[in-house]
């Protein structure tokens, strides 16, 4: 028999879906700003392997010469990104949901097993609660990354008034590099996230909109056993 199993709280879903367009616009407008001084690339021994960004990239996304516009969008949507992130963090702390989220002692070991499982190398997966070990790491990391973007962003935005933040980020240059690298990180996260969601299927996707999953009763018994295991250690 089918059963409804509550999964994601309303605020968690809300902040997830607000964050998606807010972050997308931050990345888009950030590109306009970065373009004006696109100094970054990866060079080893004087040979440049990757330049951020190649000419075709700018042409494709119509990025050239929109610095002022980019800044105007960036400094509006930073508020949405920040407030939304703050709501999520406060909610997670107050509700106690952080317990299901932050990595534990054995998480890093287990995450490896999850990876092997996801790559179809291993058949079994370690017992888990709401999030598996890899998810714990990924979803905690992404929050830390968001926090990092706010801090480094402020350090670049007001390096005199928030001189201590700038100092904390290792100076103006380094803050700008971290800010940029985190953005590249979001893009990687997004690609893997989308892939995983596609593989996980409809039931999982729906739970981030409607909040629940539909499970078969048989599985429920099994899952209860598993979660007992999970809490045992």
């Amino acid at each position, binding site marked *: *028999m*089918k*059963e*409804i199993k509550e999964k994601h709280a309303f605020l968690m879903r809300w902040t997830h*879906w607000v964050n998606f*367009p807010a972050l997308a*616009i931050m990345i888009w407008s950030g590109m306009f*700003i*970065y373009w*004006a*001084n696109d*100094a970054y690339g990866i060079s080893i021994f004087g040979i440049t392997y990757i330049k951020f960004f190649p000419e075709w990239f700018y042409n494709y996304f119509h990025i050239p010469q929109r*610095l*002022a*516009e980019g*800044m*105007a*969008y960036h*400094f*509006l949507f930073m*508020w949405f990104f920040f407030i939304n992130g703050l709501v999520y963090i406060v909610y997670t702390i107050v509700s106690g949901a952080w317990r299901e989220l932050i990595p534990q002692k054995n998480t890093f070991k287990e995450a490896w097993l999850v990876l092997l499982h996801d790559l179809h190398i291993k058949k079994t997966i370690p017992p888990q609660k709401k999030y598996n070990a890899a998810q714990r790491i990924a979803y905690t990391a992404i929050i830390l990354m968001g926090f990092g973007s706010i801090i480094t962003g402020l350090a670049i935005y*007001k*390096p*005199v*008034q*928030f*001189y201590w933040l*700038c100092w904390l980020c290792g100076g*103006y*240059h380094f803050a*700008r590099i971290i800010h940029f690298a985190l953005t590249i990180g979001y893009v990687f996260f997004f690609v893997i996230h989308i892939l995983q969601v596609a593989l996980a299927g409809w039931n999982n996707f*729906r739970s981030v*909109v*409607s*909040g*629940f999953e*539909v499970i078969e009763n048989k599985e429920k018994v099994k899952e209860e056993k598993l979660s007992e295991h999970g809490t045992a250690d």
Partner: protein
Amino acid sequence: MEQPTKKKVKAPLSIEQKIKRRNLISFGVFFTFGGGAVAGWRWLLHSPEETAGITGGSKQPLRRALNKTELFFRNFFSNNHLVKTYDKERAAKTVRINSLIGIEDDKDFDEKNWKLEVRTGATDSLHIGIEEIKSLPKTEIVFDFKCVEGWDQIQHWGGVKLSDFLSHFKLDKLSEKNYMGLETPNGEYYVGLERESVLHPQTILAYEMNGEQITNDHGAPLRLIIPVKYGIKNLKRIGLMSFSDQRPKDYWAEQGYDYYSGL
């Protein structure tokens, strides 16, 4: 599912019905808000451009946001927050020239005829020569000059602290106004600065660069060095100084940039 039976007893929903109902509600809300967000975004993308005036070149809502954000961040401004300074050895020997607006098209400019005009009233002005300015106590600063484009360079400037200049020429009363406006002699480049940044202890009227006279391309004979602002506000070759309670015109604010542009 115990309910006080008033009217007809409703049959409890089956699991299937519950699932269906919650799906309907949640996806209904999801697509409504999603649609709203898309509509909001399209509205912003197609929102009208602001009427060109003191500021221009930006969309109306974005300009409003820039101005509101300015007010928020000005709360953090303090004269105790100083820009980081460096040893002289670290200053760039070749100082970057990013733009010559207001200078390059002024072929007739002759430094010998230059005087700084300070507008003190509707018809009154002070005219101050460079020697008079150089006789004031000198302040030097080696700091990381930051361009709005994203590059920066450690530079060494010397001149008179703007607040010293103002009190020496008895302009204290005028400088209590909300803004100072500066213009190049030909009026092609101009900036507006709010009082706090003008009076910041690291804001100087510079006549020296790397210990020598400023060259023409860097704004000889006198330019503004204001480390609490992006480079766009560091006006070269000051011709006119004025005070007002309203925002004076500002070259880059007319082209979509934030009026404040503070760091």
